């Protein structure tokens, strides 16, 4: 039994009086593909924000590779190997697509111990990443010239640029066409084959079910199920709360 | 050395009266900065503008400064609404409030101050009214009417604002817009209109605060800048957007300032508010009542 890569224990987060995440525990093994689903407002993004350090949770703990992350600022978690894409794309608006992707290379990859990448290598890596997510030809464009879908791809490219061990994709595929979804899924699959653990948050069932080895279901801030996809679709509670209606 | 009790109590009373007035001055910022999240550093400029309008009408026609300010309330309301409209169209809508919006208000503050200097010079101006001068004696202590009247009017203003914000439809809408603009839109209320009304309200309070200011002390154009520190210190100390917290913080500042100038000399007083602000920001950014 391998030790978990990410271990979330009894995590709670409240906004004022409102509990957005309520005692969620979750553990992800290295190399796993985890799906995270739940109705709108069930707390998925908030959970991700707590894992990544974007928000500070009140109680519970997050461990990554056995190391407690509590109190670590977000940029250090990124450097440790947790990268995420934002649900609502947050590009750096005064920079070109290319420069957007360059930031994590400058500040995460080159901030890790070991040999630094040269400016030339960084340039090539940016181009490669942009190509991978299907933004080739848009490298010199500004974020404001991109469509919503392209911005999601940029989010993904920027997260991948940090060379993470764990990649959390928060609804990276919303609004994409069938073939584009398949492209992104294939891309994530290839990353996974290279050993990167992936948490996929998605409303598109077809994508989640085909991609994930295991699915976690959040409903109104609580975890109600944690099982392989084929069991999830049969779980009566999940069906009642989420899938059915 | 024995402790000068009487001096101390007199100074406390003066501080409390002053604090009540500070609360009135801050109520406007409490709405714009605390509730609407608009960092209107030009607010004191509007207060000074209010002082000068009271001054002009008082010296030319002998009108009562407070009466003048009450007549000016709607004018200031519309002025505020217009400023918000400009702010919204030019900055908020484009997401540029952090840098350019602040610079815009700074520019307004500056232009108002320099404009007033050009018209009126840097001399101190004051008004005449029956309640400036006499004082009443209560339990052996002097209560100057010059301070007492603004104090009572400030409390009145405060009570009215609190009522408006918690009881009226527009007031509740204002509170709602600060929490959840989306929900408000579902209620078919236009958040921009609500914010404009709230900002107008916040500037309207400046008319009254300005009149009270010139009743309390002679005014010259740069007095406004001293109040920037005070109002933001009180607003932050009181917890953003909480009117009761603002009242407590204002009293606190009034007393501390008054004690400082009694026991260390008035030249130290300006540093009190700012020092308090820096300390609050450093150690208790959510305010005294905050969690």
């Amino acid at each position, binding site marked *: 039994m391998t030790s978990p890569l990410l271990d979330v224990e009894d995590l709670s987060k409240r906004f004022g009086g409102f509990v957005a995440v309520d005692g969620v525990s979750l553990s992800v093994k290295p190399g796993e593909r985890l799906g995270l689903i739940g109705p709108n407002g069930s707390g998925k993004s908030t959970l991700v924000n707590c894992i990544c350090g974007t928000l500070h949770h009140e109680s519970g703990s997050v461990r990554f590779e056995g190391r407690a992350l509590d109190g670590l600022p977000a940029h250090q978690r990124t450097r440790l190997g947790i990268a995420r894409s934002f649900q609502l794309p947050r590009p750096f608006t005064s920079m070109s697509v290319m420069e957007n992707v360059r930031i994590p290379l*400058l500040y995460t990859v080159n901030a890790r111990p070991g040999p630094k990448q040269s400016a030339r290598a960084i340039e090539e890596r940016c181009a490669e990443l942009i190509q991978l997510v299907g933004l080739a030809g848009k490298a010199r464009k500004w974020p404001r010239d991109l469509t919503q879908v392209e911005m999601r791809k940029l989010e993904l490219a920027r997260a991948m640029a940090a060379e993470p061990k764990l990649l959390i994709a928060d609804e990276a595929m919303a609004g994409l066409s069938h073939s584009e979804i398949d492209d992104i899924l294939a891309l994530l699959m290839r990353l996974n084959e290279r050993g990167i653990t992936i948490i996929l948050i998605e409303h598109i069932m077809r994508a989640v079910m085909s991609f994930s080895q295991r699915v976690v279901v959040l409903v109104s801030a609580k975890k109600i199920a944690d099982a392989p996809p084929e069991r999830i679709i049969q779980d009566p509670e999940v069906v009642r709360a989420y899938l059915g209606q | 050395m024995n402790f000068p009790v009487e001096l101390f109590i007199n100074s406390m009373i003066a501080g409390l009266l002053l604090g009540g007035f500070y609360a009135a001055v801050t109520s406007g910022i409490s709405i714009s900065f605390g509730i609407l999240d608009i960092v209107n550093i030009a607010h004191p400029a509007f207060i000074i503008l209010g002082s000068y309008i009271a001054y002009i009408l008082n010296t030319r026609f002998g009108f009562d400064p407070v009466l003048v300010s009450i007549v000016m309330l709607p004018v200031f309301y519309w002025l505020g609404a217009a400023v918000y409209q400009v702010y919204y169209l030019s900055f908020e809508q484009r997401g540029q409030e952090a840098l350019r919006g602040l610079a815009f208000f700074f520019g307004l503050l500056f232009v108002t101050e320099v404009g007033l200097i050009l018209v009126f010079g840097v001399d101190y101006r004051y008004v005449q009214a029956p309640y400036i001068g006499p004082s009443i004696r209560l339990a052996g202590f002097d209560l100057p009417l010059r301070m007492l009247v603004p104090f009572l009017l400030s409390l009145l203003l405060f009570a009215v604002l609190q009522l408006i914000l918690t009881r009226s439809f527009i007031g509740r809408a204002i509170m709602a817009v600060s929490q959840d603009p989306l929900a408000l839109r579902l209620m078919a209320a236009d958040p921009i209109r609500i914010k404009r009304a709230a900002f107008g309200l916040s500037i309207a309070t400046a008319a009254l605060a300005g009149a009270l200011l010139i009743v309390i002390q002679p005014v010259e154009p740069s007095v406004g800048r001293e109040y920037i520190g005070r109002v933001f210190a009180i607003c932050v100390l009181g917890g953003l957007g909480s009117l009761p917290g603002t009242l407590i913080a204002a009293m606190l500042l009034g007393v501390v300032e008054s004690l400082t100038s009694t026991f260390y000399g008035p030249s130290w007083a300006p540093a009190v508010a700012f020092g308090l602000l820096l300390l609050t920001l450093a150690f208790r950014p959510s305010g005294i009542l905050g969690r």
Partner: protein
Amino acid sequence: MRSPVFFVVALVVGAVVFAASRYVENEYFFFAGYVVLQFIVLATAWNILGGYCGYVNFGSAAFFALGAYATVTIHKLYPMPIPVLMLVGGVVSGIVGFATGYLTLRLRGAFFAIATLALAVVLQTLIINWDFVGGARGAYVIRPNSFPLLGSYIQYLFGMMLLLTVISVAGARAIERSRLGYGFATIRDDELAAEASGVPTLRLKLIATTISGALMGMAGAPFPYYIGYVEPGTAFGLAYAVNSIAMPMIGGTTSWIGPVIGAILLGTVQQVATVTISSAVNLLIVGILLVDFVIIAPNGIVGLVRDRRIGSTTVEPTVFVLLYVLNLLPTIFLAKQGQAAQSIGLVFWAILFFVTYARGRMIGRVWLMVFPWIGAGLSLVPVTSETPVVSTVVLWSQGVAWLAIDPPTAVLIVSLVIQVIGMIYGAALERRTPAMTTP
């Protein structure tokens, strides 16, 4: 151009300017030039934090004054050469910048701005109550008459300030193109996304406040020797606070050249203008230009030249009425300053004309330039005490016409008609009573 190369080029340019200035006979040139250079440093310093990171510092005057008062203190204890004083001033202001940032930068951005406002008042109160440096009365710092090899001491001060300018401009440019500069830009764009990309935002913000504060302190260090007599009112003067914000905003905040352009433009105009008009009117114009630019040309002059396309801009009656009221203020006050002030009025309107024209062309509303035309026309009206009345009438009739009829044509027609009437009336009045011209 690579940064080291640029630095060498800037150094050479600085040396050439200095060498050329040796042929200037007029001492006034050095006094004026010193101030312009000082503003280039202040604007560049402000821009490192404000323009690159997006954090507004209202306390430039405080950092500047700290440098100046560090010099006063040292002067009283043991006089030292200017370069040493600059270093000391830089260290003092840099430390204060770091401390202010450390206290407030973890909170929402607005708190930092408010804290810098507060800082200026706290420091001024401290200085006023500190007798060693003269308190409220101020302190005399006798400037030596000459400096070995260079001749007059003011030339030496000018040279030192020129060197500091070269260093800070080259430094700002180097930062802009470095990893640090990219990091700053991510902070300006989106701090959450920056953190998620591994950018240590707090540390970078502290670096920026420290560098920015230190440069301001360095600019302030030679000031006591320049002015000869320092009192809190001048050292903490409003001019520093407003100019160091207005200059980058007008020049353009996203690149190093913006503050330089803004400082040269505004600094020179102000230096020329102080001869003819009061410093209050001077500052009024700066403040108004600041408001104009943040609304009409958010990316400054650099943006006007560089941006071929822009996002949607609303041209709303409210916005233009406000701008118009503001922009008439200097005309009114300049009218009171006498004939000589007219040229200043023209310069001011020329700047505004350029801005409005460029902006109007971008958004397809060329008629916007009607406004500066009117303004320029007004400032040509012979100076009479009636000029303010004329401008008020123009303003209000335009406002009414705007709301009543189709905006562009209405504004054009009404303003032209009133303009002509106003000018004829003004001229007639002028001829009948020449004594009306106020000095």
